[in-house]
């Protein structure tokens, strides 16, 4: 009975976490009155772009791997 209660309470907490009123900030990503890109600016050199993309991708991958590990635990 106690286990059943705890399970129910956990479910209720999950629902509460999903529905509780939170303040978020999803304003448009650019300035309210958007500044331009620089027409003279050029993309970074391919090598550094690839390296940076690699780092970024590794970052995302690491997050997901970390989460999986946590889930397994």
């Amino acid at each position: 009975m106690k286990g059943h209660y705890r399970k129910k309470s956990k479910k209720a907490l999950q629902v509460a976490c999903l529905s509780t009123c939170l303040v978020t900030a999803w304003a448009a990503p650019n300035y309210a009155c958007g500044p331009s890109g620089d027409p003279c600016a050029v993309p970074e050199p391919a090598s550094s772009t690839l390296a940076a993309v690699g780092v970024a991708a590794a970052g995302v991958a690491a997050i997901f791997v970390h989460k999986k590990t946590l889930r397994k635990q």
Partner: protein
Amino acid sequence: MVRLSVCLIARNEEQNLPRALKSIGGIADEVIVTDTGSTDATAHIAAQFGAQVHHFPWCDDFSAARNFTLDQARGQWVLWLDADEELLPGSDEELTRSLESDQVLAYNVIRQDLVRSDRLDLYAQMWQLRLFRLDPDLRFRGRCHPQFFPPVHETAKGKGLSVGTSTITLRHDGYVPAVLRSKLERGLRLLELELHDRPGQFYYLVEYGRTLLALENDERGWAVVAEAAEQLVPVLNHRTPFSSMIAPLLECLLQLPEDRFPPGITMNTLLDLSERWFPRAAPLLWIRAKREFDNGSFEEAEGVLRLLLEMGRAHSYDRSVSFNPAIIGDDALLNLGACLLRQGKMDEAERCFKGLLKSDTRGSEARSNLDAIGRLRRDFGVRRTRPKAKHG
């Protein structure tokens, strides 16, 4: 020998000009200021700082004024500065090093775009092509947002030289809200003239559409954005984008109702292009995070927000287009906290919100969310997890 000419054009810039000219004191062999019709003390101030002052009648064309200024310069190199910018201390050594290269035609330098004059720590960085050899083949075109024509890469290639990057850093406060609207209104008129002179230019179409939208002329803005998007249709399968301005176009399109898309473009196309062509464009990642959040995919939204925050710490985002730094800072952290709480990760969410309590932009929102967590803890008897004691 005149090695470095610092050039700028100005009109009614008596407030900003002293800061700009002071910042380049001691590094320029000559300073050239072209006054395009000031009615204040701009020309007088420039002369006081030892600049050569020239006058050029304004003709609705920034490139014409810039090219006139270049014609007055005698240096081997030019550092182009705007009156609302300043060269940051610490750039001198890098500047000296850059001028010594005999392999480079022009350099991109870093510009910090402030959103508030009182917050020097709140900015996004952009590449700006500002240091270049004084060469008759490097001349500007475009009534606003001047660009080199022919493109600088083609000119460099033809001369057996390259276009480099440098850590020389400028600070710019021309996008703070107080001055932005009037700048946009002036820009709109010049964009219309430019597109009248040379119709169909992709860069200017995108800029025109965005400016209309920023000035809340939505109907016309969406129509122009859709017109620019038509130029994407033939290149959708290309491996690389033909212009960095595609990123802000995608940003606009992703916020457009799908029934307004031009034929051949769907929401999936736009999401695919964003990931394939601009994996580090912070505004596009932000829109993706929002979509995931709105769809209830909180784990995915969390991953993207963490990536944005990491990019913000390292300034490792795509620096070809400017954006609101809040999306790699406080706003991202607030939303990350929300994602974590939606997944039931109270402790982690709480840490995010506590980290914002001193924020002057999101402090009150963070406080409100912490109160919400406090209520949940009370209602469900959930205690904080104590940090594990460290052994050894």
